[in-house]
């Protein structure tokens, strides 16, 4: 049976601090913050009025001519994933149908795709005329909806909002005919997808996989959910730059955003054969979950986070002290940050005081199903550039948090990075990346 090593040979991202992964890395190194007042809709009636929005982009630019008519079936989540997938493939040197149909150098049936996707909210404005036509005496009337509303909705409406459509559209554009999966574990989805795709390659069911996640959270319905849950900050609207404060004593909640992150995973032998540039190796995967009846939060001791990290370290056959960097989930919600830091501390033991920890959401915002993949892209840059940028907005560590948060840029050789994430609902994920060595 196969026992393939899996490496990362391509990187792509679109995020609030840059529409490519290179731009993102430069922004993160410069401490640039992508959080600002919401422009996608008028947020004045919302308790949280800030978010991480990406700069304007035209998805048509990333599509071959034959696929451009598909744009009308793409929700924003899908568009973001298309952009990041394009960059990832181009940086890998793999030529798919979508890159150049004349010079394809990859076997479609040996390619897999595995994306994390969120609960995509429909465009309420698009639905509104049908809803407005279904009102009797000031209230929604389901009988009118059946009779008059339904036929006012565009026929392909449903297809825009199915979570699997991210992977479907990208798979169609690039002719990916191997295993396709869509992981719907919210903020842990992308890392679970990257983990599963790595294992699909390792067990020999594909040679190459596009893996990551995308989500467009700057949508009124999604924002109001986070406001209702009390997860979104309501106190820092006037200072967007300093609003998201992971592990800081003044943390007041999360700030949500939009983005996508995609990596090209490849069987090491195949990558070597074609002379691909290898950015890093996927060394270990761990998963578990938090059990808490108040499942919008992590359990207080972070046990689910601890188990996932322990499994990932064991999978990579290393000990905690081997780690050079941790990119945690750190979302700026005080109780969750504290629980996560306890879980990390429990898994690391004595090494916790030494291993550098670099939270990124203070700059990137919480991009939901994308955030874990964007962090993996950032982790690969840290490895290839030999640099850990300074954390932002962690001026005074919260009481009880014993993590070694990076307050000033560090330059050093980085061999092992741990990325971890968790989500409301409980799923936890951990991935160990390794600097590539023959």
């Amino acid at each position, binding site marked *: 049976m196969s026992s*393939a090593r*899996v490496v990362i040979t391509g990187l792509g991202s679109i995020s609030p601090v840059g529409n490519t992964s290179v731009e993102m890395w430069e922004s993160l190194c410069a401490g640039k913050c992508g959080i600002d007042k919401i422009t996608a809709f008028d947020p004045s009636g919302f308790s949280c009025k800030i978010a991480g929005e990406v700069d304007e982009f035209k998805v048509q630019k990333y599509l071959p001519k034959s696929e451009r008519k598909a744009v009308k*079936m793409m929700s924003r989540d899908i568009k973001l994933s298309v952009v990041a997938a394009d960059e990832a493939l181009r940086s890998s040197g793999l030529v798919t149908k979508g890159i150049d149909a004349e010079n394809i150098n990859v076997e479609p049936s040996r390619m897999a795709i595995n994306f994390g996707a969120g*609960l995509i909210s429909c465009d309420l404005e698009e639905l509104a005329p049908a809803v407005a036509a279904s009102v009797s005496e*000031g209230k929604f009337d389901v009988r009118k909806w*059946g009779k008059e509303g339904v036929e006012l909705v565009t026929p392909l409406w449903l297809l825009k909002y199915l979570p699997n459509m991210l992977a479907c559209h990208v798979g169609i554009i690039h002719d990916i005919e191997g295993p396709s999966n869509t992981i719907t574990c919210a903020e842990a989805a992308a890392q679970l997808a990257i983990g599963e795709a790595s*294992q699909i390659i390792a067990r020999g*069911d594909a040679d190459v996989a596009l893996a990551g996640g995308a989500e467009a959270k700057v949508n009124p319905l999604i924002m109001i959910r986070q406001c209702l849950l009390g997860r979104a900050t309501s106190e820092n609207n006037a200072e967007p730059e300093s609003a998201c404060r992971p592990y800081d004593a003044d943390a007041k909640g999360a700030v949500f955003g939009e983005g996508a992150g995609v990596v090209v995973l490849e069987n090491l032998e195949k990558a070597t054969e074609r002379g691909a540039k290898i950015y890093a190796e996927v060394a270990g995967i761990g998963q578990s979950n938090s059990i808490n009846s108040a499942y919008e939060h992590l359990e207080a001791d972070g046990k689910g986070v601890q188990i996932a990290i322990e499994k990932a370290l064991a999978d990579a056959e290393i000990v905690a002290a081997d780690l050079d960097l941790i990119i945690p989930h750190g979302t700026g919600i005080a109780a969750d940050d504290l629980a996560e830091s306890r879980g990390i501390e429990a898994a690391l033991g004595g090494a916790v005081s030494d291993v550098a920890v670099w939270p990124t959401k203070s700059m990137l915002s919480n991009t939901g199903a994308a955030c874990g993949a964007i962090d993996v892209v950032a982790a690969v840059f840290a490895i290839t550039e030999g640099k850990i940028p300074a954390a932002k907005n962690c001026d005074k560590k919260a009481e009880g948090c014993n993590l070694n948060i990076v307050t000033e840029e560090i330059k050093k050789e980085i061999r092992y990075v741990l990325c971890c994430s968790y989500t409301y609902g409980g799923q936890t994920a951990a991935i160990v990346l390794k600097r590539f060595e023959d």
Partner: protein
Amino acid sequence: MLDKGNKERVVITGMGVICPMGHDVETMWSGMMTGKNGVGKTTIFDASTCPTTFSAEVKNYDMSKYTRKTQLHECGSRGSSFVVGAVSQACGQAGIDIETDEPSDGIERSRLGVYLGAGEGSVDNEAFFNSIANGWDGEKNEMDWGKWAETAFGQMSATCELEQESNMPVAHVTMVTGARGPTRSCLTACAASTQAIGEATNIIRRGDADVMIAGGAHSMIHPLGLMGFNRLTALSTRNDSPETASRPFSASRDGFVLGEGAAVVVLESLSSAEKRGAEIFAEVIGYGSSSDAFRVTDMHEDGRGAAQAIRSALSDAGISYKDVDYVNAHGTSTTENDSIETKAIKAVFKEEAKNTPVSSVKSMLGHLIGAAGAAELITCVLAIRDNTAPPTMNLHDKDGELDLDYVPNEPRKMQIDVAMNESFGFGGQNNVVIIKRYQE
């Protein structure tokens, strides 16, 4: 090391289902043996003016039969509440302790995982629609987000909004079982729970868990879901005869029947099952997954992706198409699926295609969307146990091109040792799982 070369055999040691044909596995199966069905007028909401007025609903479900902690789960979506029942049955059968901090079933909780192909919950209809209606400025043709937010903040509840997330059924299952192993939720439309079972099998093979609770949960019987499928013209509109509306492979088929439910199996490494002395119902021997990469609206005309998934499952199982005794089809009763699925089976099974019985239990169950594949895999287990292929009901007018043996209208006694379950999702994800009668 990502691949440990650890290839554990994986067996099924428990099953549970809450579906339109009953609230347990035996009731569902005996209904299938007598050709009953779970289709009728939609009662969850008033659908009498919609293009399709019927569906396959789970009726009279009482969650308190399955959990002592209903208050933990009653806030959940229909999918979440159904899956609590299905998991409780499956764990009972497998001898897995639930709702206890001190399980004595011999299963380490960090070695017990959950993988569901689970769907999103319904929107909170009243709050959702009324806030849109109040925010809509018909004159300007745009939303007034301030007015929308005012209604939404007033009417929406935090819990109800959170419960719409697709990973919530998994959260409920972990609360019931205390599972701390790999937990994942996937949603590849109508193929989701077959994919979940296939990937969960691989988690055990790799040695990352000893036991995985795998399956699906979904309900799209709500005003938005019904509208979405009606607009795609995917649903049958045979409003004058709901019971015969789902007629897979028939010439007069006109779409699928929307159903709901939850179904799970307990997958276990053979060594763990033996150690615990658990009863073994079948062995999972193969899994294949592929994508059409064709169009989001249609399946590939030749069934390219479907055929590839079947081939890859056979290869994973290390068997030939000649070894497959029975195929449980995706068989949705849409013009497109049934015709392309037939082509795909012919492409792989060649000369054996017409000799291999293929049936669709969606003729009775309706289409449970994300939960469909798991419910259908359970029927495969029972088909092996009882050496009986369940029928494709409502098949009276054969479509000329569709000339396989669809086991029309009556169950068939026959030797079944190997059964194949096919699931194909909107957008082109194809998943196939093969199971076999357990032999040491």
